[in-house]
């Protein structure tokens, strides 16, 4: 069994406007020491998936069905049904978490050292001194300058990049098997982003930690991930090894995302491509294939004989070993359809 | 409900969803109705009467003595209507208040045909004739409380109207102008805050030779604006830098126009909250002053002054329980309205709901 597996996860928010399924039947798995990139536009449910893993979804949100399995010596445990006290041992112990906002995710009234040491003390029977020593060791590991001095500083004295290093140190302090990184570089400057990603990749190699990297940035995925899952409107639409996905993207949405990336070689010359339309709000997910209102294929295939994209909802099919696509036209998508991507001038 | 409604429309919809806040608002509306209808609920003057061929509304005298028709003074009614009406004009008729009791004096024996004199002192225990009892002098407590509603409501609105105006003006000037204006207004605010309120009020009440309930309201207003000023200053400081204000300034709007048309409407929601809580506080201060014997002078009917009577006669528990509960419920209602308002207009809470 893989180290970590999510099966048919449904997380919904119960608001005054009714039930809003932000995550609607997501399945994915990660092997030991591997990196999975979960990609999608904002609002597609990728962050809610991340929060569901450690049951950190806030009040109106609830995990409704599905299981989140973590391989353990005594067999896999389901984090969805695990008692609170056992879950707490997993949080920070076997699964570490890095959040998007390094500015607000650290407690302003405790020193950096205290916050890392707390993570150690919560999971290991050791003295305060040992925990502090471990915190210092971690700060060195994440290559923070002047670690001895930083240990006793407060978060507001550090820059965004330094704080994210502290977050990484905290998430890795107990040598977890898996790190969930929810947009770890989004809030940072571009140059800092690259440093943080390098650091994550380096630490994964040295510590053998598996990483679930959640991002909207395909460039980040290309550089760091072994495998990629693309999410759209609460569902995974395509999943494949990274090299396969970038070489042979099949789902029209993935193709659109890849085409929408600015090409550094054609700097300023080529027009930017965009996917027409907007990401639907969870209250108004289209029936059938959720991408079809924006999809060129759907429009081109709207003939009386072909299966209409409105219904039924397509299943995630394995089109080649390890490559899954959720599209009625999955078999025919090998050769790109001329109308698959509408090119616009931005 | 219209699809697109303004900020206040949305706030109202959110407010309506809170049952306690709605109940409190209904209570306040009910109090206002009692205040307006007080002379028709309890009194010894007819609501409407026909006397010597003409129609009169003597009950309006409860709002202002000068409204009592002169003819009744000329005919020597001396405030006692039932027998005089019948004796001096057999053709007359009258519609009487629901309860024939006066808030300012005890009803005398046989003033209303067949009704005995009001009991006084310890004998005034609540009974069928006097559900809330009577006070030391035999005045019906229910009538006093019905007429005291006006004072309670007026105190809240008038004094907070004054405090709100001063607070917003001072805070807006300090927050918008900055510099020496801010230094000056901040210092004035601090000084007023440091002077013990009750001392200020007691001293001013002593200086005014014949204090009326209006003086009390004015003083509470003039001493209670500091919190509003500080909040307004903060809001103006925050909004001064907002893009739309810069845009208005770039478009050539003058400072007064910017303050009134652009900043104030956006700052109003947070400022309104302490004003609502201030209404509750003003009612407490007024009844506290009346209780200490420094409030509106007799014969103004104030809930606090009924309590004052109980201090020397603790056995007369009804002089504490009924007005006490009335003050409590009114203060509670205003606090609940304030809190409902806060939750209906707080942008953070709104975002949390999304």
């Amino acid at each position, binding site marked *: 069994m893989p180290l970590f597996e999510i099966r048919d996860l449904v997380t919904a928010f119960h608001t005054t406007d009714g039930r809003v399924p932000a995550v609607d039947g997501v399945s994915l798995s990660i092997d030991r020491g591997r990196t999975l990139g979960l990609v999608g536009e904002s609002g597609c449910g990728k962050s809610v998936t991340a929060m569901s893993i*450690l049951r*950190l979804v806030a009040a109106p949100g609830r995990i409704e069905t599905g299981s989140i399995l973590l391989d353990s010596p005594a067999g896999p445990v389901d984090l969805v049904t695990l008692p609170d*006290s056992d879950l*707490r*041992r*997993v*949080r*920070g*112990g076997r699964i*570490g*978490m890095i*959040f998007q*906002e390094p500015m*607000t*995710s*650290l*407690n*302003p*009234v405790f020193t950096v050292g205290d916050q890392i040491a*707390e*993570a150690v003390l*919560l999971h290991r029977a050791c003295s305060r001194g040992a925990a502090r020593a471990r915190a210092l060791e971690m700060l060195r590991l994440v290559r923070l300058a002047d670690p001895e001095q930083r240990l006793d500083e*407060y978060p*507001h004295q550090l820059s965004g990049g330094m704080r994210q290093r502290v*977050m990484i140190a*905290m998430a890795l302090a107990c040598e977890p098997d898996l790190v969930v990184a929810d947009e770890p570089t989004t809030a940072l400057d571009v140059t800092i982003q690259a440093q943080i990603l390098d650091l994550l990749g380096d630490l994964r190699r040295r510590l053998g930690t598996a990483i679930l990297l959640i991002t909207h940035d395909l460039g980040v995925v290309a550089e760091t991930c072994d495998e990629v899952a693309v999410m759209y409107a609460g569902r995974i639409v395509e999943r494949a090894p990274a090299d396969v996905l970038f070489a042979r993207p099949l789902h029209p949405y993935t193709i659109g995302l890849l085409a929408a990336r600015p090409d550094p070689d054609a700097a300023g010359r080529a027009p930017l491509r965009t996917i027409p339309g907007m990401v639907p709000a969870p209250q108004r997910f289209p029936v059938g294939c959720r991408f079809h209102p924006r999809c060129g294929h759907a429009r081109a295939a709207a003939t009386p004989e072909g299966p209409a994209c409105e219904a039924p909802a397509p299943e995630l099919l394995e089109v080649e070993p390890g490559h899954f696509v959720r599209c009625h036209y999955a078999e025919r998508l090998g050769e790109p359809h001329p109308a698959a991507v509408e090119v616009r001038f931005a | 409900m219209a699809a697109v409604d303004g900020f206040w429309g949305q706030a109202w919809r959110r407010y309506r969803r809170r049952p306690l806040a709605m109940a409190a608002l209904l209570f306040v509306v009910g109090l206002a109705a009692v205040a307006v209808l007080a002379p028709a609920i309890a009194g010894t003057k007819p609501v409407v009467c026909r006397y010597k061929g003409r129609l009169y509304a003597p009950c309006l005298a409860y709002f202002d003595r000068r409204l009592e028709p002169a003819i009744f003074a000329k005919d020597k009614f001396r405030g006692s209507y039932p027998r005089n009406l019948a004796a001096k004009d057999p053709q007359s008729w009258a519609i009487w208040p629901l309860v024939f009791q006066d808030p300012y004096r005890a009803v005398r024996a046989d003033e209303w045909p067949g009704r005995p004199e009001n009991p006084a002192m310890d004998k005034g225990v609540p009974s069928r004739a006097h559900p809330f009892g009577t006070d030391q002098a035999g005045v019906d407590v229910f009538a006093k409380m019905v007429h005291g509603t006006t004072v309670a409501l007026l105190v809240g609105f008038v004094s907070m109207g004054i405090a709100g105006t001063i607070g917003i003006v001072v805070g807006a000037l300090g927050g918008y102008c900055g510099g020496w204006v801010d230094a000056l207004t901040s*210092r004035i605010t*601090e*000084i007023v805050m*440091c*002077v*013990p309120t009750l*001392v200020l009020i*007691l*001293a001013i009440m*002593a*200086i005014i*030779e014949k204090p009326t309930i209006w003086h009390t309201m004015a003083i509470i207003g003039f001493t209670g604006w500091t919190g509003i000023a500080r909040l307004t200053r903060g809001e103006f400081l925050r909004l001064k830098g907002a893009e739309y204000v810069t845009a208005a300034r770039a478009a050539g709007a003058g400072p007064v126009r910017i303050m009134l048309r652009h900043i104030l409407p956006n700052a109003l929601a947070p400022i309104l909250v302490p004003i609502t809580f201030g209404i*509750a506080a003003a009612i*407490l201060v007024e*009844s*506290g002053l009346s209780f*200490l014997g420094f409030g509106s002078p007799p014969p103004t009917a104030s809930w606090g002054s009924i*309590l004052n009577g*109980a*201090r020397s006669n*603790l*056995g007369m*528990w009804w002089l*504490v*329980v009924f*007005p*006490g509960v009335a*003050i*409590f419920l009114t*203060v*509670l209602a205003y*606090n*609940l309205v304030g809190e409902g308002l806060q939750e209906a207009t707080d942008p953070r809470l709104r975002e*949390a709901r999304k």
Partner: protein
Amino acid sequence: MATYLLRRLLLGCVTLVAITVVVYGLARSMPGNPLTAQLGEDPSRKVSAADYERMQRAYGLDRSWPEGYLQWAGNLLRGDLGRSITRKQPVTTLIGERLGPTLLVSGTAFLLIWMLAIPLGLYASARAGTVDERGVSLVLYALYSFPTFVAALLLQIVFSVWSKGTAWELPLFGMTSLPPDAPLAARIVDVARHMILPVVCQTYVSLAYDTRFIRATMAEAVRQDYIRTARAKGAGPWRVLVRHAFRNTLIPLVTLLGLSLPALVGGSIIIEQIFTWPGMGRLFFESIRERDYPTIMGLTLMFSVLTLLGQLLADLLYSAVDPRVSVE
């Protein structure tokens, strides 16, 4: 730090001068003076016009109030708060006598408030949304709106009038009903029994307010991102609540603490008046009624200094509990 304190001190002095001028002016503008207020109460002490003139001169009441203020301020700079006109005692002695009883009541109330408000506030935060939390919150809300003077009168009726002769009877007013030569233990018990009702009255409103305040600031703190980080680390619910959230609510809480300083020393005029407790609030009330200018001014000065000190204390404490804030 030193320059900050110096600046605050100078500003405070300006404020103090303004406050004392205002209050002195107001006090002197009140109709009557200490002599008329005193003599009016006691018809046996009729004085002749000449005697009255002489006394007025002796107390400096014949001069205009700005002159009187300057004289008072001059004496103050020499460390002399003056003598009470109606009580024939130095103002400092009077304040000293009244400080103890006030601190006894308000200090006890203060301890009770914070010892109860913090656990209650934390409890309400931990159980947010449950039936028992709503019940507790509703009761606190009602208490917060309940006027102290009504509560005081009701307590007096229940524990003094209706409980007369039972074990529940509590003294109606005053601080002690034993002669000063009674045994110490008996006197302590006696004073404690006299204290119960005033302390209850002074406790409940602030208790309700502070608990709601803690609950509200906790609700704000719990929404922050760092709370999620703490939970992701594996911290348990109490640890998250007490160590991570409550430590952050201390920041607004110390401001509240600093602002409650004047009330702690000044006592409550209404409560001391109802229970005829010989404290500062009652002294203030009486001195205004007696037009005893030196006492009014002494007390005003004390209140104002305490208010300013409380604000300074709040700001200093603020920078102590929030590493992001420094007083510079």
